[in-house]
């Protein structure tokens, strides 16, 4: 089955935030019914408490039996209230978590379906902030927000009906401040939101200074910038303090002022209600009723002000998330996808022109190139000439228009994505590794591969021995949570990750740049021995990596400037020939320096002695993987 980017329903197509929310909510209708019933129960019990207190106070002067009954009512109401509150909260909050769970899943799977052009335009930090801050806002809205939004008006109206029946004008006096209160808190919390935002922004600036001082520690220390940087940090820190104080003071003022409302209402009831009691219009117990409501409604009403802004923020967050979720993944199987299950490996570029989204200059222009199945093409050219772009188009991690690239004669865009990607192994330039074990990294594309296979791949990438030397061998965790590999080791592990696949097309995007010359020889030699029926794209800065290719193209400013075999291009006397002259000189020098090991063998490093021996036996350019470790005998 083909991998489809939209896994759980509710994220396809363009939707308004509320529509999107309803789409998620529709997924759990029964929970809502349950939540609704429990909420109604809660509201009912809620009304019973002040009422039964009132009745108890009225019965205090009367016979014990009446009081007894009323106290039992209060106890029952209290138990009912506790239970309905417990379950309605659990049910409502659970729904919130469930939706959060689904949204996060959708976000994750959607991100995986978006093309590389999206990642060039969006920074990781922004995408993470959507996952952390925006989903947080949505969670707040779905939990506290939604619960209060649904319950509080009902509670308030219910209380109002009861109170109005007792004394309309006293109700008006005591409740008048509540709606005003909601408006004020709502308004105020918006200011607070902006103050908070300003604080977060400043926190970002503080982060930048810290980050620079950590990443650039070598520069900061060797250029003696510590004092200057400290001053810079102090300024940012002081500004952060100022902004955080502002947020704090606003919050403080808000909370202090909020406390005034119920006190004012209760005091009004005492004064005005008391007069009515004296006039015989009301009983003392009615005052308790009002106080009971005021006390019970204060918190929900206070929350309502916040909830309005929580809701606004939640919907805004949903919209921001939506702007990512709404991007229709362009790289996916279409209706006219060809029925192809295998790729032989003939790649054809027909008058290909490619412009990166948001750029006005084409990265590639008028590329005509045919790479026969099983042949190797070398691609060289100055930095920024479009080499990486060209090879990134083949596995479709960048979008290309129809009719420009054909694989085995089928338009690239009509190739099933799954078939295409499983037939291509690419070693990208940056050799990114995940924070899992070396073995997991190598078997990334074939999770079921056994350790034998992993070892073989590592051996072919000339990294097996070094991995074995790690304390935990292939189980060594790499990356931020584990050991730090050298650039060359990372590249070779990334290479092993591609080697373990059996692709029809292999793409090396400057994948050997940090690998020393001898190792490069061994790796290329091994590839050459095995590349029967495999198409190879080798992007390189070093001539040595491409000189044996069937054809070599030189890219300059996105166009093919030269093409031919190594010999032809050297004779042509263009860019390639110049590069060749320069680099042969330098790389041979480098090679000689590293093979100095032959002159002064180091007993502590048996590997070096072997490397030296190879040179001693003759030409290092033999191309034979002479030092390939055992396990490579096949």
């Amino acid at each position: 089955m083909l991998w489809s980017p939209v896994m759980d329903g509710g994220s396809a197509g363009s939707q308004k935030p509320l529509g999107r929310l309803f789409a998620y909510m529709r997924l759990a209708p029964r929970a809502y019914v349950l939540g609704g019933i429990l909420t109604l129960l809660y509201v009912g019990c809620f009304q019973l408490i002040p009422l039964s207190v009132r009745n108890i106070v009225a019965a205090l002067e009367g016979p014990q039996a009446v009081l007894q009954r009323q106290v039992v009512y209060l106890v029952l109401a209290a138990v009912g209230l506790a239970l309905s509150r417990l379950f309605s909260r659990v049910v409502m909050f659970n729904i919130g978590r469930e939706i959060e769970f689904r949204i996060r899943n959708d976000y994750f799977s959607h991100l995986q379906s978006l093309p590389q052009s999206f990642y060039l335009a969006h920074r990781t930090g922004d995408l993470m902030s959507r996952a952390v801050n925006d989903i947080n806002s949505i969670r707040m809205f779905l939990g506290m927000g939604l619960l209060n939004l649904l319950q509080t008006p009902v509670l308030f109206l219910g209380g109002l009906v009861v109170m109005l029946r007792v004394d309309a004008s006293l109700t008006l006096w005591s409740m008048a401040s509540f709606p005003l209160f909601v408006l004020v808190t709502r308004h105020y919390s918006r200011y607070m939101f902006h103050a908070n935002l300003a604080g977060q922004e400043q926190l970002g600036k503080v982060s930048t200074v810290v980050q620079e001082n950590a990443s650039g520690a070598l520069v900061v220390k060797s250029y003696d910038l510590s004092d200057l940087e400290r001053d810079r940090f102090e300024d940012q820190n002081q500004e952060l303090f100022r902004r955080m104080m502002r947020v704090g003071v606003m919050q403080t003022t808000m909370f202090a002022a909020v406390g005034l409302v119920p006190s004012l209402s209760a005091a009004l009831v005492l004064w005005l209600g008391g007069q009515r009691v004296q006039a015989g219009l009301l009983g003392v117990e009615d005052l308790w009723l009002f106080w009971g409501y005021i006390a019970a409604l204060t918190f929900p009403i206070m929350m309502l002000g916040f909830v309005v802004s929580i809701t606004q923020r939640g919907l805004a967050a949903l919209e921001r998330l939506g702007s990512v979720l709404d991007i229709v993944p362009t790289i996916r199987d279409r209706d006219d996808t060809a029925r192809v299950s295998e790729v032989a490996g003939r790649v054809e570029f027909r008058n290909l022109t490619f412009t990166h989204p948001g750029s006005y200059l084409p990265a590639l222009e008028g590329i005509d190139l045919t790479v026969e199945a099983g042949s190797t093409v070398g691609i060289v050219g100055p930095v920024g000439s479009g080499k990486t772009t060209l090879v990134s188009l083949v596995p479709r991690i960048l979008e290309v228009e129809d009719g420009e690239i054909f694989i085995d004669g089928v338009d690239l865009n009509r190739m099933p994505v799954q078939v295409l990607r499983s037939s291509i192994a690419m070693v990208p330039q940056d050799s990114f590794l995940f924070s899992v074990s070396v073995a997991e990294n190598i078997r990334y594309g074939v999770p079921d591969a056994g350790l034998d296979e992993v070892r073989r791949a590592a051996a072919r990438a000339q990294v097996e021995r070094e991995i074995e030397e790690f304390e935990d061998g292939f189980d060594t965790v790499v990356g931020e949570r584990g050991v730090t590999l050298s650039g060359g080791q990372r590249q070779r592990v990334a290479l092993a990750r591609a080697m373990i696949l059996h692709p029809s097309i292999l793409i090396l995007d400057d994948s050997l740049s940090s690998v020393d010359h001898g190792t490069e020889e061994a790796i290329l030699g091994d590839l050459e021995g095995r590349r029967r029926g495999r198409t190879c794209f080798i992007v390189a800065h070093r001539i040595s990596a491409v000189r044996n290719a069937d054809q070599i193209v030189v890219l300059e400013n996105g166009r093919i400037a030269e093409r031919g075999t190594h010999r032809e291009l050297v004779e042509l006397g263009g860019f390639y020939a110049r590069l060749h002259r320069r680099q042969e000189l330098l790389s041979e020098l480098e090679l000689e320096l590293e093979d100095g090991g032959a002159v002064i063998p180091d007993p502590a490093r048996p590997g070096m002695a072997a490397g030296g021996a190879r040179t001693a036996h003759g030409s290092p350019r033999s191309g034979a993987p002479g030092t390939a470790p055992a396990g490579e005998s096949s």
Partner: protein
Amino acid sequence: MSEERGEAVGPGRERDLGKVYDSELIRRLWPFMRPYRGWIGFNFALIPVRAVLELMPALIVGAALNTLTEGAARSEVGWMAPFVVPRFGLPPLAWMFVLVLGISLLTLCVDWLRAFTMISLGQRTIRDVRSALFDHVQRLPMRFFDRYPVGRLVTRLTNDLENLAEMFSAGVIAMVADVFVMVVILSMLFSMEPRLALAALALVPVLGIAAAIFRYKVREAYREVRVKIARLNAQLQETITGMKVVQLFARERRNFEDFKRENASHRDSWLRSIRYDALLFSTVDLATNLTRALIFWFGFRLMDADEITLGTIYVFSDYMGRFFRPLMDLSAKYSVMQSSMASAERVFQLLDEPREPEGRIESPVAAAAGPQPGGCEIEFDGVTFSYGAETVLRDVSFRVAAGERVAIVGHTGSGKTTTLKLLARLYELQNGSIRVDGRDIREIPKPELRRRLAFVLQDVFLFDGDLRYNIVLGRDVAGDVVDEAARATHVDALVERLPNGWQHKVSERGVNFSTGQRQLLSFARALAREPQLLLLDEATSSVDTETEALIQDALQHLMEGKTSIVVAHRLSTIKDVDRIYVFHHGAICEHGTHDELLDQRGVYWRLYQLQYAQQETAA
């Protein structure tokens, strides 16, 4: 939201025990709070004031109720009597309204002051901790930066400290105030009517047990939620960063399954904590209402015997509500304290990292002597150095006279770059010594040593700021020095092409410049320092021919008139220097001028032969 930001809390990496209070951490925090102890004292002084203010309205209302039911004769409740006597000719109820309103306004002021002082204390303390932490980080040795991930460091100085700040607004002192009010309530209730007080407290032991169980359960639940969200976000971040690999290797489906599993586990932890939370809320609510029923029930009997008034019952009912209320937000406080403590622990761990040793205090004589123009003399004497178990330099000795140019060549990992780093004292010497103009570098204050040198690194680090800032690096550099540096390194041509010229915005990743351009920028940066000593670690990455020519030309200007030690990768550089040291596995195996080395017929000779042979083939 703190540590949710993609920080991996791997097993054993970062301890998160879910502690709510750790006196050791508070003790360590104290020096930072000490300057503001006045705020703390003031805050404590306000606690009793606040308690009295909080308890007064109920007494007044109780008195008012008595006035209404029993007439003015028995209006007093507790010791509020002198206050409830009407004044200013107001009727009793109006007077009580004024009183309650007045008390509420006072409460508002006191509440504001308490919160304000707390926030001030918290934010000031955090600001100072942050400054101290940054200062500390700057003094940490290079070895620290080699292993500590940048992202984690940023989290320490931002989110962890923000978490710690929360402790002040919702933490320890607020709890002290809560306990104080509870004690005052109890003593007042017992002084008013001990029998009714006993009845009212009947449910407290039950609630106490419930709170203790809850304390244990919720601690675990919250800890779990925190760890899981961190893991989830780390996974998301890594997937985003490595998305290209994910897609190339068609791992989407499997990744999604993994993510979904983690996400579900996070959701389930949340659900558990929600259950405990809601349970606590409902239990406190229930206890409050049942206690009220108890008060009415026993109050009724006492009232029947005419021993108490309706006002007393009101006061009891009001006070017991206030007695239980702090338990309601217990879980919120728990969660805040827990994450503050976890953050504090991480912050102090960072503060415990040993600093790099300071250089000796600058003596007035040394400072007066100042640098001599025309470069300085360098001497390595038996230097041996290792990173952990791996020995990088073995008994390296050499001497560079003032104004000389020296190249270091050798295999990757042969200790070339380390030699430069040791000279800049980025790492501490283990054996042997390095002398600059005859003085041991350990006796030269670091700032002085580093003022005299310019280190051009392989990887050019660009700061957030404009282009000019990246050349002068915050120092006051005369305009013509900058212009000259730019001219000599061909940066001027680059500046001309930029629409904003010197004001062109540069970011850390510096994606707006090519590798070659970045190298030229780093040359200009070094030149603008007008150093006596140039330490140059030539970049290995290849650049296009045109830029290469520019770089070679700029290098000439760069090395002019100063002592230069270059880790060389360019043939042109090697041919150009006064002397070459060939490094092999951390030791110098050959040295001499280009011609001498050729005459020795050793490694360098072989190298040269090979190179000539190669040139002939190419021709």
